């Protein structure tokens, strides 16, 4: 399983680099029914405004030993444009990955991206996680 995951990620990375017009890094915060999660996405954007890449997110829990991460969720993210304009894009987004290194999870959602400048944009993403709505706020930086 590990080998397959590594090969998949490498293939996606190679295809991403080959087809991408832009590379983006996007820190985000997601509010789920189980609490807040914090993470980052590395995305490749094609000419047609498709985005694909990888993500990692985790909860932060306070304990006697300090702040610890919990329920890590990592995998691949793909978003397809539904409506495009100069300032605002609407996208269908899917995250597919593994939670707590055991549980395969697919998270569909709808994303609105608001462009602030050439290199910076903000996104909101409404998804379904653990069968409840979740809200994600993302800060996209084009490298």
């Amino acid at each position: 399983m590990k080998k397959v995951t590594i090969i998949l990620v490498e293939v996606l990375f190679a295809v991403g680099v080959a087809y991408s017009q832009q590379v983006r890094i996007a820190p985000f915060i997601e509010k789920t029914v189980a609490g807040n999660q914090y993470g980052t996405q590395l995305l490749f954007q094609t000419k047609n405004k498709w985005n694909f890449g990888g993500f990692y997110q985790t909860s932060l829990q306070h304990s006697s030993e300090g702040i610890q991460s919990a329920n890590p969720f990592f995998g691949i993210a793909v978003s397809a444009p539904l409506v495009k304009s100069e300032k605002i894009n609407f996208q269908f987004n899917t995250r597919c990955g593994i939670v707590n290194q055991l549980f395969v999870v697919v998270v569909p959602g709808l994303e609105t991206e608001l462009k602030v400048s050439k290199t910076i944009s903000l996104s909101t993403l409404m998804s379904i996680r653990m069968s409840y709505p979740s809200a994600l706020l993302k800060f996209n930086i084009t490298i």
Partner: protein
Amino acid sequence: MERQLNISNALMSTNIVMWVAILVLASSCEPAVEPTRRFITYKGDHYSWPKLLESLQSQKLVFDARFNETAKYDFGALAVQSDKNKLMGFCDCNSLPHENSARFAWQWFNNQLEIYAYCYVKGERQEKYVGVVDINTYNHFEVEFTSDQYIFRLNAQPAVTMKRGSACSVGSYSKLWPYFGGHVAAPHDVIIDIRSIY
């Protein structure tokens, strides 16, 4: 060429409202919703409503459940009365319910609501008595799995363990929701409130 859109003021306003809502949501620490659901198995049916698709995301399934007067029934025949109704649990790694799964089950028997651990291990059904619960009050349930066993906990009672037989580790673990029966469908509407704890 990129399609140019003339975005109306209404669309812009909607977006602003959505942005403000999400900013408020993201900046607060409290859960956005109280994850309590009412499951109803209608008379003559086995499956409960709403029907949900959700997968487990940790090695422990934790929830509180409340039964009410609708949990009482009398089928007369002992064999039917002792059929186990399913409360909640999960399918083990990439398995179907009748292959590898772990659930709490319940039955109205001897004028009390009895709770059982109910598992399928490599297609073989296993049951163990866990305890008795009161109706009209929330009771605490936990099912945890380790590499080789399921651990069932009910309120403060001693844990009950059962053998686990799943062949894989990474995969889909879909949750299983209330189901009436056994062989006989619900004699009347049966209501169970379940509060998931994440």
